[in-house]
């Protein structure tokens, strides 16, 4: 049993949803491999993944920065205009003395999303340039830790819920950042839910193997 080559292990895949053991097969460009037990997506093969990934990562980063600098929503209440930005949301919690919630929110809706998309951009850039094998590996490990804690999609839904609560009491105007956040969340969902980390690891192996030959 111990004689099994570790290289062979790379062909094995355990389904992320139902834990069934699979042997990976070569599939056509643009095709998907699904789990035979539960139909969950195992991996896809896309020859242009690096370009897509880099473009989407960079776009998401730009829209995320836009979403942070401009007001998301403006409201008019008793003649006063109020607005929120992402940093203002958790800074208010700090001002009111809710340090733990403030810190959690700062990480979940600001720091982690920022880190996730910086990582995506850097990883795909490194893969494109075929440089930094070890660095890419470490960044991928970091990415998989942070990925679970990115909650910008949930934050976006929360904004909608908060606004519906306010309808009828105040006049609401959507800011530029709201639309930037919408685009950002759409890319976020595509990148983090559609592109499996497994695919990037397979890409990593492919890219740097070609290099050594």
């Amino acid at each position, binding site marked *: 049993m111990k004689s099994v080559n570790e290289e062979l292990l790379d062909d094995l*895949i355990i389904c992320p949803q139902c834990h069934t053991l699979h042997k990976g097969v070569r599939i056509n460009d643009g095709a998907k491999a699904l789990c035979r037990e539960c139909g969950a997506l195992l991996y896809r093969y896309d020859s242009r993944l690096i370009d897509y990934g880099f473009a989407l990562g960079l776009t998401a980063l730009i829209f995320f920065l836009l979403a942070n600098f401009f007001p998301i929503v403006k409201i008019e209440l008793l003649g006063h205009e109020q607005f929120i930005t992402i940093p203002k949301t958790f800074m208010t919690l700090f001002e*009111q003395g809710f340090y733990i919630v403030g810190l959690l929110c700062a990480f979940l809706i600001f720091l982690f999303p920022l880190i996730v998309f910086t990582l995506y951009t850097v990883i795909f850039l490194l893969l494109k340039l075929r440089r930094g094998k070890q660095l890419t590996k470490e960044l991928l490990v970091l990415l998989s830790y942070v990925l*679970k804690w990115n909650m910008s999609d949930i934050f976006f839904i*929360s904004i909608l819920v*908060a606004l519906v609560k306010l309808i009828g009491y105040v006049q609401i105007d959507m800011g530029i950042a709201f639309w930037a956040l919408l685009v950002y969340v759409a890319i976020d969902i595509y990148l983090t839910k559609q592109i499996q980390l497994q695919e990037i690891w397979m890409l990593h192996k492919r890219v740097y193997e070609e290099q050594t030959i």
Partner: protein
Amino acid sequence: MKRLKEDTLVRCPVCEAVNLKKREKIRCHRCDTVIETDPRLKLSKSWAYLITAMIAYIPANLYPMLISRQFGIIRESTIVGGVIQLWEHGSYPIAAIIFFASIMIPILKFLILIYLLISVKYPIGKDRKIDKHKLYYLTELAGPWSMIDVFVVAILAALIHLSHVEIIAGTAATAFALSVFFTLLAAHAFDESLIKENR
């Protein structure tokens, strides 16, 4: 490949690569992360986080989540109170979202994790392995959505703070955020490879 038995293989929790289970501690061949294969350690960790989360969930329901001050009149609402208020106001969809996110998901998650943690050690009834994996996957997926209420309170507090009309977060916000945080940790700490078929 039939030679390899499934229980000699372990999935790296970080990069999802399949590894051979050789010794107590192994390093993933793909990402070099140390994979903890001692089931007792992982289970006690998961239990500890889960119990912390359940304790934090009690004050989260007793203390007010949202305090609104309107011209000197202070109104406090708890999580359940907030849902009832929304329902009475006629905003049924929002009431349903908050009800699911803040009450249903946390409680279901507690129950599912308790069930999974117990069933790993003591087989209860007949259940299929795949169903349990699905159950775990669903809790992982739905877990973070409990944060909606905390974010909503944060947004409202940031948006409405005039000298006469003000919304302040309540003590429950801290307790609830901590509860969700620890449930997430408990779910991450749980070792999926321990799920076995009970027949």
